[in-house]
């Protein structure tokens, strides 16, 4: 369960003078992601998705507001929050000179599992995520799909209640994307809280139980897909997104007639 309340974060302007106005990456973000559901954080590039996830992952300290992961405050109980959370950043960031198995096992050990448990858990995940073909190969030259699987296995290795993924389907082909969807659905069915960010409407529409639209560092709207469509009076998520951002949906004039 993730609860974010009025999160705000700004960064010093880069390349400018010290007195340049800081960049407000996240202005006011409040939302909840419940257990047993997949919540999509939908927004354009630069809307503040990654900064929000990084604050929830305790990697950035919020300037304002607060957030809790399963009741653990991300500022005051950093290690508690991290123990509940599996975080897969935008880039897989796996170690190229280690095998897939070693990559996962390393994270298992760092998450506090004893050696034998870590080996067993790594083996389970390799089977569960169908990584057997490449589990003992060094990660140099892995396909994007293989890298994503390793990164996902690493995020899941300590059996966290909450899973957070930053644009996980980036660079994945159709089959790999479908495979990842199945995995996330299965996790949600088992009661995990899954939060993932994306800018791909179709992705979010197909997968998410609840959609939170973020624009310009603020939450524009948060609801189920049918709820969103109803509240915006639109028939498609893309149109609902445009309307939620305060724009009008322009329909091309019908040709002929």
């Amino acid at each position, binding site marked *: 369960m993730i609860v974010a309340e009025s999160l705000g974060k700004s960064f010093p302007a880069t390349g400018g003078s010290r007195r340049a106005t800081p960049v407000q990456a996240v202005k006011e973000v409040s939302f909840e992601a419940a257990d047993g559901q997949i919540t999509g954080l939908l927004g354009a590039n630069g809307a503040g998705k990654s900064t929000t996830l990084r604050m929830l992952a305790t*990697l*950035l*300290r919020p300037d304002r507001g607060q957030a809790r992961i399963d009741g653990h405050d991300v500022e005051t109980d950093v*290690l508690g929050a991290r123990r509940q959370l599996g975080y897969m*950043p935008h880039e897989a960031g796996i*170690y*190229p000179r*280690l095998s897939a198995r070693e990559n996962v096992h390393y994270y298992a050990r760092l998450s506090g599992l004893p050696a034998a448990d870590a080996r067993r858990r790594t083996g389970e995940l390799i089977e569960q995520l169908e990584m057997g073909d490449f589990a003992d190969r060094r990660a140099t030259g892995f396909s994007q799909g293989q890298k994503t699987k390793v990164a996902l296995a690493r995020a899941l290795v300590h059996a966290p209640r909450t899973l957070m993924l930053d644009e996980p389907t980036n660079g994945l082909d159709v089959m790999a994307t479908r495979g990842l969807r199945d995995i996330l659905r299965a996790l949600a069915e088992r009661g995990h809280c899954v939060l993932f960010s994306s800018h791909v409407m179709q992705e979010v529409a197909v997968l998410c139980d609840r959609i939170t639209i973020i624009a310009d560092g603020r939450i524009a709207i948060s609801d189920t897909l049918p709820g969103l469509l109803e509240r915006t009076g639109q028939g498609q998520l893309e149109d609902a997104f445009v309307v939620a951002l305060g724009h009008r949906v322009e329909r091309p004039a019908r040709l002929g007639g």
Partner: protein
Amino acid sequence: MNLRSVLVITVKEIVDNLRDRQTVFYALLFGPILLPLILGGSLAASFKQLSIDFEEVTELAVAGAARAPSLMAFLAGQNVDAVAAPDDPRGAVARGEVPIVLQVDVGYEQALRRARPASLTIHLDEADKASAKAARRVEALLGAWERTNDRLRLQHRGLDPTVFDTLDIVLDDVSSDGASGQLLASLLPFLLIVSMVMGGFYLAIDTTAGERERHSLEPLLGLPLARHEIVLGKFGATLAFVCLSGLLCALSVWGLFRLFPADLLGSRLRFDAPTVAAALLLALPLMPFIASLLITVSAWTRSTKQAQTYLGALMVLPMAPFFVLQFLNLGPSAWLMPWPMLSQYLLLERSILDLPLSAGSVAASVIGTLAASALLLWLGCRLYRHERILA
């Protein structure tokens, strides 16, 4: 602090980097083996060329040996056997057929009998080191023979030979090992320190700036670990490589200096096992210092390229004391002792020259170096606690 996490990170970084050829080359081959071989080997070779071994039996090409039987007998007594010179002595030396030719000129015997200066010519090729060295040996022997004969001539005429000695100059070199001994003594700390720095260099960059560049730092920082555990884990791996490089370098230096002729190294200069072990022991506090310096500087940089540039510039640091001590005559004074690297240079040099080391100096060196390491590590942990580490 969870020591198990620290150890897990250390072991992973060591295994990971042992699979990297560049890191392994610099840690296990370049510093410990190639550098001592290149530096020590060339020094040994030049010493061998410069020094003359009067015990060594050599052949000397002599033209007109029959004119100087007593001189030939003297030379034979000095381990120099005369052989017949080629017909064209100058040409033969120029062509490199023989290193030098000693030519006993016509009229040599007559001049000797009349107590006039008897003429000898040494044909040599000064550009050729072997020829110049052979000529110096023969010149020295001829000088000795000449001095003996001078004295005999004067005594024959009833004169005390010492009448002609206006000055009696005594050179008392208290260093006992001369300039070359000093240079050799500072070579071990130089090799040891450069080798240790090179040993940890690429691993430190790979585990900090490299990790950030590969985007593997972000998920790592999201794990339930304290930041100082991550820094200490990486420090541990760097320290292991620094120690290994230092140990291997000490071993190869010990092996290399066994090839040096003992009299060349002077009476005090020693590179035997106890000396090398003592040097390694004195350099021990430097290992955490070097590891923490490498980790902290490369964690501070934004990319591996920048880390390489900064640490490359920093490589001057281990070399600086070597050059400073060559130019300035600095003794082990109290204010120099707490400085890492400089104090180790001074202490190691004295230890190799078999000079006494004061317990105070050693303690100041150890405490100063360890304090500097702790400060650097603390700075490294601060860097990892800062959000900027991800930027």
